[in-house]
């Protein structure tokens, strides 16, 4: 757009910048407050509540939470579920997406309808629970991965990406005697790295954030992923939620604010670490999924 130098135009510009700056500020402030709060002492936090820059850095909260077995174990569970889950999801999703991207496939339309329909209608929580239970997955790590292995949106995004690769590539590979598996692994996937990376990161974030499958299917506290533990420490410890079952022994008295904040940070940081990598791709990736369906 060409610069508009009228007074009205300048005022308009100024207002736009101010509003957007405030929006960004409001978005980021709670995070900054939590990070600063986790790094300060209990006393400082008690004296001035708006801590954004702690005067005295204290690692006490972190030392404490990593001295308890509970958080360490939950982190390991989450890391494991995220790693295996992402790999498993990507294998299933890429294989299916590639298959469905082939225009010469008989039954392609029906299969696509079958997938889209699951986005519109579902059996719901209880029937799904019964299926997972009858497969013997209750209280196993598999229950955190397998029942949510494929995300229909991600599948469709990847399929669209595969479909938009030039047809000639596959044909010429075929003429050179390449099998379908060869085409997928040696041509299609290497050419689709941006899409593969985006979808992998989407899956990884979902697995890291997994909560509902954990409260539905996991009974024993030592298998809790970090999100469930976070809820126990911050939300249940406030004594507010309906059921306070299964609150683990490491925190008998309600933990200090600084400790709550430190646990929030620990549960958040991994996502913030992948975020810069994620950001490079997701404009394109997310778009494909939302508009073209």
């Amino acid at each position: 757009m060409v610069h508009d130098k009228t007074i009205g135009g300048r005022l308009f510009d100024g207002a736009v910048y101010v509003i957007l700056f405030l929006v960004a500020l409001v978005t980021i402030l709670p995070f900054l407050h939590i990070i600063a709060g986790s790094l300060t002492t209990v006393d400082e936090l008690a004296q001035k509540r708006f801590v954004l820059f702690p005067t005295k850095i204290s690692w006490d909260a972190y030392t404490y939470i990593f001295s308890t077995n509970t958080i360490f174990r939950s982190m390991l569970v989450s890391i494991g579920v995220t790693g295996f889950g992402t790999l498993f999801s990507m294998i299933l999703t890429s294989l299916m997406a590639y298959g469905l991207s082939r225009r010469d496939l008989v039954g392609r339309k029906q299969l696509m309808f079958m997938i889209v329909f699951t986005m519109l209608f579902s059996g719901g929580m209880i029937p799904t629970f019964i299926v997972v239970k009858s497969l013997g997955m209750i209280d196993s790590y598999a229950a955190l991965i397998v029942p949510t292995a494929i995300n229909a949106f991600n599948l469709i995004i990847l399929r669209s990406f595969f479909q938009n690769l030039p047809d000639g590539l596959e044909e010429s590979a075929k003429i050179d005697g390449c099998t379908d598996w060869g085409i997928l692994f040696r041509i299609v996937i290497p050419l689709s790295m941006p899409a593969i990376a985006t979808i992998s990161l989407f899956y990884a974030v979902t697995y890291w954030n997994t909560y509902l499958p954990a409260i539905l299917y996991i009974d024993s506290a030592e298998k809790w992923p970090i999100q469930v533990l976070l809820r126990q420490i911050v939300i249940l410890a406030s004594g507010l939620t309906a059921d306070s079952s299964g609150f683990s022994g490491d925190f008998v008295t309600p933990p200090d604010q600084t400790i709550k904040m430190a646990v929030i940070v620990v549960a958040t940081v991994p996502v913030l670490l992948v975020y810069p990598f994620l950001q490079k791709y997701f404009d394109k990736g997310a778009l494909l999924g939302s508009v073209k369906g």
Partner: protein
Amino acid sequence: MKKHDLRRRIMKNKAIYLMILPGLLYFVLFKYFPMWGLVISFQEYRPYDGILGSDWVGFKHYQRLFTEPMFWTIFRNTIILFLMNLIFFFPVPIILAILLNEVRLQAFKRFVQTIVYIPHFMSWVIIVSISFVMVTMDGGMINEGLDAMGMQKINFLLSDEWFRPMYIVQVIWREAGWGTIVYLAAIAAIDPQLYEASRMDGANRFRQIWHITLPSIRSVIVILLILKIGDVLELGFEHVYLLLNAMNRNVAEIFDTYVYTAGLKQGQFSYSTAVGFFKSFVGLVLVMSANWLAKKFGEEGVY
């Protein structure tokens, strides 16, 4: 002849079918089996006897559904949260995208985008935890702020009047930035000549937004509105469940949380499946009607 041809085409793609198989199995097992499992809403389901061994009771659970006062409470709560989403949340990404589009300093635009996308990647547990820490009565920064300004502290977490505002603020805070992506892409596709022409005609920036930007992204708005309406009953189990407590139950309990407590916690499998079925069915009908309406008004629709 034709049949033969079909068989040849299928055989030729053996490898491809093999690739689809694991994914297909996933959809059958975890999506279509549960749909079949909805039959337990017409049974007195007993886990030990399974679906095949449990007794049929016809519409008993559906009758209970419509006579149960709690059902109407959650029905009302669900509708109110949905309407709040539509009225307070839905326009925000559109406005934000239009504002971002008016920014000419690319670095600033990038900076704002980077920040406002972040909350989308945080789990609801994290977002609810952050707000708990911020609004708590003893030392939360919001209440301390109110106190410093000489106002009464508010017990946000344990009051039924603050549940809805808190819910919608969290939704906006988490999703508004992410929601701009689609609109920004739609705006980017607008022909710049339209803006030049309008400037020649003396249109100011507001008029350009009103007469060019908004009409150009109308179809995207309609598509997203249809999808949103389809989500009518998907208000987020996790989000609401985390905010739910004994004090705000009568405004906070929605279909999903009710299915969870009545079904899994209290073991009323069949009844809560009926509640879930009702929810899914209404959602399906709504998205189809919204789509039909959109087409009627000359828009593309989702499918």
